[in-house]
C-alpha cells in the first residue's frame, strides 16, 4: 500500500538543475505538480513519473521521486506496465502534444480505453519544442512553422475530443501559469480512479510564444475562458454575468440580465454525468465563438484495468485447481513410464 507523508513541496525537487528555457511554461507546471503531490500527502518512494521524449518529458529528472524518461511516444505504454506491475504506486505520465498525439497516438487512445489508473499531464504548446519548432498535431490549420512554411493543410486534434472519443472518463484543462487551478485540477486527477487526462495550455517562449495568449493573457482570461466546477453554474466573464445555456443541440453564450436571462437559466456543470454529449461540447469550445473551458470537464467512475486485473487474478486463483507450477506440470495428459 502507498503511504501517507507530510512533505513540503520543495522536498519533491531533485538535485538536478532545471534546464528548460527561462520563461518556458514548463517551470510553472513543475511547481504545480510538486505542490499538488505535497498536498496529496504523497510519499516520494511511492511515486513513479514516466515520460516520453520532448522538452516536457525532461520532467522526471527534476522530481525527487522514481522516474523514467523513456522513448518518444511510448510513455503511456511504459506507464501502463509500471501500474499493472505494481498498482500501489502513484503513476504519473508526462507527455507533449507530439509525444502523446503523433508518435504515441496509438498508446494514448488505448491507455484511455483501458482506463488504467494513471494521471497523464499533456503539455500542449502546439509545437515540437525539443526538435526546434515544427508544427504538431495540435497546431491550427494554416499554422506556419519550419516544416509548414506555407501553412499546414491538416486539421488539428483536440485532445479533449480525442480523449472522450477513446472513452475517456476524466478530462480536465488548465493553463501553465495558473498555479492554483493547476494544483486543484492535478489533485482531482489524482483522486480519480482510472486514466485522467489533464491538458495544460503551455507556452513555448522560444518556438511558439504567445500561442495561447489570446485566451490566457490576464486582460482576456476572464472573458475568454470559463472555469468549470462540478455542481456550479457555468458562469464566466469579468463581471461574472456571462453564462452558457443549451439552445437546441448547441451551447450558447448568454448574458445574465439580457433577453430575460436569469442565473437560473444557466447550465449547472455535472462532471459526473456518464453521457458524453455535453462534456464533448464543453471540451470542444473554442474562442472566439465560446470561452475555452478550464477545470474538470469530465470525471466519471468506471471499471479500472489494474484493479480488474488484481481482482481477476484473485478470483481465478481461488477457483482454479492449479495452485502451483507443479500442479500445472502434472495437469492434463500425463503418463508414467515404469
Amino acid at each position: 500500500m502507498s503511504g501517507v507523508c507530510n512533505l513540503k513541496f520543495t522536498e519533491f525537487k531533485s538535485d538536478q538543475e532545471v534546464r528548460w528555457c527561462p520563461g518556458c511554461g514548463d517551470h510553472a507546471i513543475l511547481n504545480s505538480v510538486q505542490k499538488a503531490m505535497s498536498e496529496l500527502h504523497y510519499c516520494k518512494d511511492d511515486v513513479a513519473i514516466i515520460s516520453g521524449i520532448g522538452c516536457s518529458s525532461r520532467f522526471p529528472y527534476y522530481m525527487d521521486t522514481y522516474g523514467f524518461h523513456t522513448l518518444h511516444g511510448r510513455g503511456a505504454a511504459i506507464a501502463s506496465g509500471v501500474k499493472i506491475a505494481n498498482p500501489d504506486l502513484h503513476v504519473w505520465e508526462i507527455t507533449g502534444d507530439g509525444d502523446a498525439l503523433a508518435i504515441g497516438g496509438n498508446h494514448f487512445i488505448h491507455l484511455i480505453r483501458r482506463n488504467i489508473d494513471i494521471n497523464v499531464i499533456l503539455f500542449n504548446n502546439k509545437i515540437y519544442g525539443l526538435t526546434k519548432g515544427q508544427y504538431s498535431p495540435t497546431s491550427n490549420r494554416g499554422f506556419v512553422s519550419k516544416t509548414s512554411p506555407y501553412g499546414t493543410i491538416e486539421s488539428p486534434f483536440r485532445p479533449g475530443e480525442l480523449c472522450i472519443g477513446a472513452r475517456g472518463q476524466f478530462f480536465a484543462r488548465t493553463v501553465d501559469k495558473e498555479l492554483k487551478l493547476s494544483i486543484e485540477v492535478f489533485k482531482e486527477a489524482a483522486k480519480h480512479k482510472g486514466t485522467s487526462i489533464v491538458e495544460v495550455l503551455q507556452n513555448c517562449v522560444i518556438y511558439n510564444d504567445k500561442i495561447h495568449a489570446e485566451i490566457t493573457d490576464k486582460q482576456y482570461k476572464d472573458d475568454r475562458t470559463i472555469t468549470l466546477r462540478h455542481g456550479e453554474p457555468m458562469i464566466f466573464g469579468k463581471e461574472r454575468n456571462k453564462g452558457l445555456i443549451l439552445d437546441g443541440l448547441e451551447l450558447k453564450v448568454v448574458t445574465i440580465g439580457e433577453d430575460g436571462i436569469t442565473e437560473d437559466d444557466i447550465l449547472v456543470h455535472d462532471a459526473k454525468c456518464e453521457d458524453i454529449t455535453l462534456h464533448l461540447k464543453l471540451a470542444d469550445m473554442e474562442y472566439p465563438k465560446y470561452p475555452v473551458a478550464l477545470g474538470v470537464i469530465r470525471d466519471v467512475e468506471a471499471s479500472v484495468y489494474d484493479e480488474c486485473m488484481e481482482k481477476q487474478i484473485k478470483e481465478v486463483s481461488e477457483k482454479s485447481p492449479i495452485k502451483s507450477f507443479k500442479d500445472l506440470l502434472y495437469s492434463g495428459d500425463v503418463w508414467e513410464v515404469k
Partner: protein
Amino acid sequence: MGKRSKVIEKDEVVVRFSGDSGDGMQLTGTLFSYTSAIFGNDISTFPDYPSEIRAPQGTIGGVSGFQVHFGHSEVYTPGDYADVLVAMNPAALKANAKWMKPGGTIIIDSDSFDEKNLRKAGYKTNDPITEDKLGDFNIIKAPITTMTKESLKDMGLDNKSILRSKNMFALGLVYWLFNRPLEHTKEYIRKKFKKKPVVVEANIKVLEAGYNYGSIIQAVTPSYQISPADIEKGYYRNINGNTAVAWGFLAAAEKSDLPLFLGSYPITPATEIMQELSARRDLGVKVFQAEDEIAGITSAIGASFAGNLAVTTTSGPGLALKGEAIGLAVIAELPLVVVDVQRGGPSTGLPTKTEQSDLMQALYGRNGESPAVVMAASTPTNCFDYAFYAAKIAVEHMTPVILLTDGFLGNGTQPWKIPDLSDFPKINVPVVDENMREEWKPYIRDPEKLSRYWAYPGMKGFAHRIGGLEKDYITGAVSHDPINHQRMVDVRQAKVDKVVDYIPELEIIGEEDADLLIIGWGGTFGHLYTAYEELTNEGHKVALAHFNYIQPLPKNTSDILSKFDKKVVCELNMGQFANYLRMNFEGITLKQYNKVQGLPFTVKELKEHFIKLLEE
C-alpha cells in the same frame, strides 16, 4: 482380432495425416502421437498448416498436414519422408505424395476423389495414381465418407455433424495399421465433449468402425510393428516449443520469486506462448495484450522498472518493431526477455513456415552500440530450459536477453519428462538492500558481473531517475561527456561479454579427429544430429558442434573450431551465423549449407551434402 496377413517390423515410422484445413487433421495427428507416446515410443511431431484459416476447400493451398515420427529408439526430427500417408482428398494426395518413402502406404478417402475435387487439386485425369506414378505404393482406397455415414445412420445426426467425424474413421484405421489401443483416444473424446454425449457416442462409433474396417481388409494390407523405446523412467507429457517457453518463464518466476509480466501482441507462430500464459492468471501471471508490438515490449520494460520478471514474445516483424525499445532496456540496464519465434521473411513473408533468418536482427538490429545477450533453443522440449536460463541471465546480469526459437520448434512436439524444479538453480535477484542505501548510486555495479543493482518504485530511500539519454558512469544522471560515453559503451559491452563465465562450454558431439565438423545453431539440431548419427553409423568420421549461446559465444568456441580443417555451417538462412563466426574469428574458413524454403532441413539432403564434402 484376426491374424495379420503381413507384419512389417520397423524401428521407426513416419505418418502424415493430411486433408482440407477443415478436416480436423491437426487433432487426428495429435491424438495419434499421444497414443504412441503413452505406448512408449519416442516421438517428434510437426504440424504444417496454411496461413489462411479457411483457404478454398479442396485446393492445394488449403491442405493441412500433421506429421508424426515415432520409434523404438530416440527420434530427433518429425522425419523427412512418410511411411504412411492419410489423404482425405485429392489435393492432400497431390501436395504430399512427393514426401513419401518408396513403397509406403497411402490411405485415401475414395469418396472424395470425384471429378470436381480432382480438378480442384490440379489433376488432369481421373486416375491420380497413374497420373502421379504412385503405382509402387501400397494404396488403401477406403470409402471413408460412406462408411462414416453408414455407421452413424441410426443416430439422427445432421449431415454436417456426420462428416465432421470422418477424421475419426481415418484415425481408427491407422490405429489398426499400428496395432494401437483405442482407449486413450476414447478417453480424450469423452473428456472433450463431456457436455455432448451424442458427439461422444458418434466419434467413438466412427473410430471403432475405422479400426474394424482395417481388420476386414487386412488380407490385402500390411501392418506395422514398432516396439516401445527404451525410455528413462518417470512422468511424461507431450509438449510443444511454445508451451515449453511459456512454462520455462513460470519456472523462472518461481525460482526468482518475482511476479511474471508478459506484454505482447499476437503474431504467428508466437501467439501460443501468450495464450498459454494468459490462462495462468491462476498462478498470478499478468499478461497484457498490448495495442502493438511496441507497446508489448515497452509495457514489459515498465513492468521491469517496477520490479517484475518481464517478458515480451513475438516473431520477426514484431522484433523489427521492438528494436528501439530493446535499446532502451540496454541503456537503462533493466532485465527483459524478448522471445522471437522466427518465421519466413522478409516482411510478412511466410507466417506459418520456419526459418532462422532473424539472427542478425537479434544481434544488431538496433541503433547505436546496443549489445544484448542472444541465445537459441534447439528442441521443442529444451525451449523450457532456454526460456528459464534466458530469464536467469536477464535478471542476474540486468540485461535484455533475446531468445530465438522458430516455427518448427514452437509447433513441434516431443514427449517431455516432467522436470523436478529442485534440479534447477535459484535465480538470484540483484536487488538493492537496506545496507547499501548510503553509498548506493543507480549505476554502481557488481564487480564480477558488471551489472547494476535493481531498485524499484515503492522501495524506501532509493528514489532515482533513469532514462534513454546517456548516463553518468556512477550516478546515472544525464551526461553528454565524451569520455563518459566511451566508458559507458565499453561497460555495457563488457557486461554482456562477462555472461560467458556463466554459460556452459560448447560440446563436440563425435570425435575430435573427425574429417568434417558440422556446425549448427537453434532449431536445426534434430536434423543435424540425425544426419551426424546416421553418417557415423555408416562409418563416416563426422562431428557436430551445435550452438545455443550466440552472444556471447561459449568460451571454448575458438578452440573447438580450430581443431577441424573442414567445417560446414548449416542454417535456414543465407549464412548469417557463418558470417557472425567469420566476424568473431578472423581468418576462419567455413563452408556453408543454407536453405530458405520455409521448411526444415531433411536428413537426406544433409547427408548427401556432407558425403559430398567428405569426398572433396
